[in-house]
């Protein structure tokens, strides 16, 4: 078994992965909005 400590702040890694996906989604939405503002 690999010696692995838990991730920082949260109990599991899934929370971090959802944060990455969430931030990416927010960015894409923001970019969509910016693009549509001038299209």
């Amino acid at each position, binding site marked *: 078994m690999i010696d692995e400590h*838990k991730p920082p702040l949260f109990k599991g890694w899934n929370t971090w*992965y959802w944060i990455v996906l969430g931030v990416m989604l927010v960015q894409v939405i923001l970019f969509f909005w910016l693009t549509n503002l001038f299209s």
Partner: protein
Amino acid sequence: MNLLDWIILFGTLLSIVLYGTWKTRGAKNIESYLKGDNTMKWWMIGVSIMATQASAVTFLSTPGQAMEDGMRFLQFYFGLPLAMIIISVTMVPIYYRLKVYTAYEYLETRFDLKTRTLAAGLFLILRGLSAGITLFAPSIVLSSILGWNIIVTTMMIGVFVIIYTVSGGTRAVSLTQRTQMAIIMGGMVLAGFMAYSLLPVHVSFGETVQLAGELGKLNIITTNFSMSDRFNIWSGLIASTFLFLSYFGTDQSQVARYLGGKSLTESRMGLIFNGLLKIPMQFIILFIGVLVFVFYLFNQPPVFHNQTLKNKVAKTEYAGTMNELETSYQSVYQQKQETVTSLLEGIRQDDEASIATSKNEYYVLKKQEDSIRTEVKKTISAALPGAKTQDRDYMFLNFVLSYLPHGIIGLLLAVMFSAAMSSMASELNALASTTTVDIYKRSFKPEASPLHYLRASRFFTIMWALIAMAFAMLANMAENLIQFVNIVGSLFYGTILGIFLVAFYLKAIRGTSVFIAAVVGELAVLTCYFFYYDEIAFLYYNIIGCVLVVLVAWIAHWFDQGKEIKKATS
């Protein structure tokens, strides 16, 4: 440039080299040299990953990309966060469990020696070429500014990198990258502020953004799907994910960054750090290009941004033609400037009709400007046969040299050289590791002492640096450096990723099947590149290579199984 700029530039670079060499002197064994004692924390890994990916090409070429084509290049990075997650979940634990030095060691455990050697070989070709491009970009810049021969400038940068990379190995690379990244981020933020501060006082930030938007530079998201279109949301989300999975998951120059982590947790957090920050970082760099674009709406840009080349033409018989073209360009620019002033007024009055009219006029004049520029490029080709007439990679640099104050010029040049050095150091370190571990130690000299392999690693580091320098001097760059780097990557990453995906997920398939599949996949990608270059955008090579390897491996395995069943029954 003046004395202050030179002092800042060389002072910064020499400090980094000396600091890196001093702090990491005395690597005693190959483990420390190639893996770096496993002491790196998550933020150091994250910085190292970002510094490895962001070479001078990023800073030279990306702002110019935005100036000409708008910000839609940002879509290229959309697949990166997805790739970070997949790698954190699947690949990193496997590498940690097997305690490998290189990603390709794993392939022998899973398949056989020939597959390991093939993957390592493809990586060495790919990374060797890329190291040459990484070195070429700042070399050509410096050679252009100084008027020195490119051989001299290439050797200068190459030697700087060799000193601390050969001496300190992975630890030297990681340590120097922290300083380099700080310089890079500070420098780029400063460049952004300076570009904005040089805009006319009467143009606010909001109006700047609106101008850029109305003139099509904030076209971040494009949804039209076409296999021949390089940058749209589909290629960004799907094809780029494949590219980044391969680059971060199987390319030793990145794998080495996070395998040097203190623990699996630290490595995963480093990848997550990269997944969160990469897109905003690229947004800032592209936005700086947009600011420079708006700057040039109010200040006449040069008709050709590579001033050194333009000055050379002025000394030939084509000087007269060039002068006429510059005069025409100036005249068209002045008309365009009036149109921009009307557009700005229309924006302030919120007058849609006026905005539409001004935009139409702008595009008509822009077309005239573009044809003059095309004529200029033809003139340059005629005056200096073989000269590179693509000047997109000089746009940002020319702006820095022409308009920014002394001192800041030196700092921004230090940014570009730091970026080049940080990427090249990772690449050399990875090339040396793979050559030592996957080729030399595995197939040629398996029983030597640790000290012998340490010396071999140092030798291979120098060897690859010399190969990269030779390639840099010979390279004739394609249309745009940042795209060329990714085209070269896309030629090989799909196949390598396919090998690893079969390794991870299709446990029944064995070495020979995947080896045949890899050869077929690579040939298919090369066919697309040489025969269907215009029809298929390069990002899709990653999917084509990867999918073909998986499919052909499965088919070859199926035939193999069929033969074994026949053998068993007969």
